[in-house]
């Protein structure tokens, strides 16, 4: 489901009319901020105008008091858009936020905007001056979420910013970034037969549209997959694999590859190699093929029999490819799963098979390493197994933990450590594992956790409860890689947290070696700095608390003074009985001893 934004089209239609209105508008800046424009309003004649106004009033007064309204007319009917003014800008904002997209009836879905948004566009100068050559600066690409859905695809307004001047470029559905050179945007309804616009590839540096593509509605995002060095990108359509090269954006060798029945493909993250698989076709068995680009040499083909489905899992550096194969062996009814492990770095890419006796819930390669973790079985008996792909041709099962509450695996980006998490329906069970010796470092829980994010160095993990999946207890918790809880941060309506990615190190290998040698000296300096910053933080807190306590004590003193002054009144109200303290009238107390039955114990004395 893509929620679309018709703002761009609206803007073009309004340009002329607004010009007149804006020239005549009163110069108060304040009033303008409280005005909204509602489009897709039914066009009615004077006989039904009153009724229309009532309906509009009913819907829009929910956000605040409407102080002014204007229904422009042409040829005896309303034009189809109206202006409403509220008493304060915040009401106008509320109206835009909540009424935009309101379905009045089958033909009319309101589009609501702030008047100031149009004003902004109108003030772009008519004269075009060639821009000055600007020194190259960092880019910021603003994505203004318009209607965020809890799925992969959301609706964004896309702005390209240079030196912080916002220039709206396009209204799109999804954006992808590749190597900071290209941006791919997807907006299905902008497509026309002659001018493919559903998918557009932009050059980030120039802001230029490089090429547009058509797109079938049933396509599976991401439609284009890029090679690791950015030289190629490919997409799969019915029986066809189309590979394009950059920067020309043309088809490699000027033609697509015809591969009958191609089901899925993916690039190696390390080399320009594509892996794809084709299901069984009459006598020809299913097969997985590894193809080198740009030569298109098939460096490895693997036949598979009785295949139901395949999934491709690349190791982060492209050292290994795991193909998870679901098969129904001849003569049986059930599905068994094998992992076909392709050793990419060895001559002729040998393949080893690991047979799994149970259904697979999750699979993940160790980044930078040669281990992988598997969650298999069925709730409540879920097992976690860890395998090591050894260089001597064997794949060893290092360890298996049974009865785990987990449905996802999160490796540290540096490898070795991982978190087994039971997200969402499994109530946030967490297990922190060190795979070097396969020990459980810690078992913990973040109730209803929906996401796990490692920081890029692998030192910290954040578990979070997103508002998209659970409406209460939204928070993100910070843990060390060993599973020690450091912080809990509650945040109302918290949705998502992402760690800032690390750019590649600026240090050379020798410099890194030298630092590692000298680590003791550096760690001393850092610990000192840490202590200083810690004590400063608590000093601020302590000062704040002192201030609050002083204020409070001052108030209490004044209150107690008045309390003492009122004492005679209190005594009078209670007939002279002093009740100011609990022990004020001890003489009045009666002492009573009551026995309560507590326990009965039978002690055998033994033979006398």
């Amino acid at each position: 489901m893509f929620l679309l934004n018709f703002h761009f089209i609206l803007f073009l239609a309004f340009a002329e009319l607004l010009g007149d209105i804006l020239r005549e508008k009163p110069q108060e800046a304040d009033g303008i901020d409280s005005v909204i424009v509602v489009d897709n309003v039914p066009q009615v004649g004077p006989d039904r105008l009153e009724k229309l106004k009532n309906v509009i009033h009913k819907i829009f007064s929910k956000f605040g008091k409407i102080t002014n309204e204007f229904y422009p007319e042409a040829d005896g009917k309303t034009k189809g858009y109206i202006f409403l003014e509220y008493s304060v800008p915040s009401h106008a904002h509320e109206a835009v936020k909540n009424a935009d997209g309101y379905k009045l009836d089958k033909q009319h879905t309101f589009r609501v905007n702030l008047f100031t948004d149009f004003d902004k566009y109108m003030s772009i100068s008519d004269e075009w001056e060639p821009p000055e050559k600007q020194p190259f600066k960092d880019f910021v690409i603003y994505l203004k979420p318009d209607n965020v859905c809890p799925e992969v695809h959301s609706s964004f307004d896309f702005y390209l910013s240079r030196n912080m001047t916002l220039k709206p470029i396009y209204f799109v559905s999804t954006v992808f970034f590749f190597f900071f050179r290209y941006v791919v945007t997807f907006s299905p309804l902008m497509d026309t037969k002659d001018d493919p616009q559903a998918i557009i590839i932009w050059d980030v540096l120039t802001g230029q549209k490089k090429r547009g593509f058509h797109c079938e509605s049933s396509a599976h995002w991401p439609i284009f997959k890029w090679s690791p060095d950015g030289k190629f990108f490919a997409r799969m359509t019915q029986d066809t694999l189309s590979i394009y090269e950059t920067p020309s954006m043309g088809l490699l060798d000027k033609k697509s590859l015809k591969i009958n029945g191609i089901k899925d493909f993916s690039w190696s993250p390390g080399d320009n190699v594509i892996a794809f698989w084709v299901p069984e076709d009459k006598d020809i068995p299913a097969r997985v093929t590894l193809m080198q680009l740009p030569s298109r040499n098939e460096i490895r083909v693997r036949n598979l029999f009785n295949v139901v489905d395949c999934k491709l899992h690349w190791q982060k550096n492209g050292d290994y490819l795991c193909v998870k194969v679901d098969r129904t062996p001849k003569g049986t009814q059930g599905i068994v799963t094998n992992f076909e492990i392709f050793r990419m770095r060895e001559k002729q890419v040998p393949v080893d098979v690991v047979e799994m006796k149970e259904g697979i819930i999750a699979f993940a390669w160790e980044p930078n390493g040669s281990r992988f973790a598997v969650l298999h079985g069925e709730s409540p008996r879920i097992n976690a197994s860890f395998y090591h792909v050894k260089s001597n041709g064997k794949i060893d099962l290092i360890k298996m933990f049974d009865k785990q509450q987990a449905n996802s695996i999160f490796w540290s980006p540096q490898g070795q450590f991982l978190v087994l998490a039971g997200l969402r329906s499994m109530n946030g069970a967490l297990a922190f594992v060190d795979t070097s010796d396969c020990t459980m470092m810690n078992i913990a829980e973040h109730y209803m956790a929906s996401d796990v994010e490692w920081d890029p160095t692998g030192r910290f993990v954040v578990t979070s409860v997103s508002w998209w999946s659970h409406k209460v207890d939204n928070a993100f918790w910070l843990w060390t890689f060993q599973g020690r809880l450091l912080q809990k941060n509650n945040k109302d309506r918290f949705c998502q947290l992402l760690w800032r990615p690390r750019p590649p190190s600026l240090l050379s290998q020798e410099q890194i070696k030298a630092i590692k040698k000298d680590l003791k000296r550096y760690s001393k300096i850092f610990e000192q700095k840490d202590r200083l910053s810690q004590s400063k933080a608590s000093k601020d807190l302590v000062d704040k608390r002192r201030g609050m306590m002083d204020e409070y004590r001052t108030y209490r003193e004044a209150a107690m003074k008045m309390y003492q002054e009122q004492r005679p009144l209190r005594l009078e109200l209670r007939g002279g009985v002093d009740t100011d303290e609990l022990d004020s009238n001890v003489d009045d107390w009666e002492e009573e001893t009551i026995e309560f039955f507590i326990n009965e114990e039978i002690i055998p004395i033994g033979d006398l």
Partner: protein
Amino acid sequence: MKPILLQGHERSLTQIKYNREGDLLFSVAKDQFANVWYSVNGERLGTYNGHSGAVWCVDVDWDTKNVLTGSADNSCRLWDCETGKQLAMLETNSAVRTCGFDFSGNIIMFSTDKQMGYQCYLNYFDLRDPQQIEDNQPYLSIPCSESKITSAVWGPLGEFVVAGHENGEINQFSAKSGEIVKKIKEHTKQINDIQTSVDLTMFITASKDCAAKMFDTTSLDHIKSFKTERPVNSAAISPNMEHVVMGGGQEAMEVTTTSTRIGKFEARFFHAAYEEEFGRVKGHFGPINCVAFHPDGKSYSSGGEDGYVRIHYFDPQYFDFELEA
């Protein structure tokens, strides 16, 4: 601390209250009953039988002679504390939501809900005048046309009643003239509970807007705010420490999964001066509807949606605990 569990109600608790000396704990619930317990060991002393609808509120006078209850059966009843005998029944046109004895124990007030065409009223009866009771004629009856009263407490000398309303407003109603002497609006949603400090100089409000706030009773000055992420159902001020306790819950719609282990609903303790949360006590299997401190501050109790009342005696560490300052 190991809590004492009181299992005397079949439905959710609506209010709990200690008497002035703290030896008795009164509890009322939606199951039509009012119970009284020894707070020292949780043994039930007795039940006040008679209401035919959910009991919303309870109060006991300073001398622990009379008990007052208000119910959804459109009555406010007066009972003899020791014998359990019903002394008086005041019929109303709608449910009685909140009730209380004034400082002297001679005047009672109660509010009725806005229901079935009837407005919300704040009624005052003087118990020294038996005619008022016999005729069911309050000496003062104040209508509240705007937002109904959801909780109310007496001022320190019986001169006014502080009422919290459905829209978050707090009003001071004079007990002599019925006028609104002062009004403030610090909360944005319904006030679920108001409780005074033991010396009646301050009170704390618990609101659906997920915050509890402390005010000076006479001036209605806003002193402190305690913010959480859940609607607060009840709050109380410690008599001897600078602490407040709060109990709350989620919107009923949002309670999805429940853990079968120890109950997940917690009572939360805040430092009254620093406004910082410093502790939580788990145990209830449903939202906490009412909390109360024992007048000596050595224990507190909570009543939950689960029908249980839990009495907790604090460990020594609770009294030694200090936030760095």
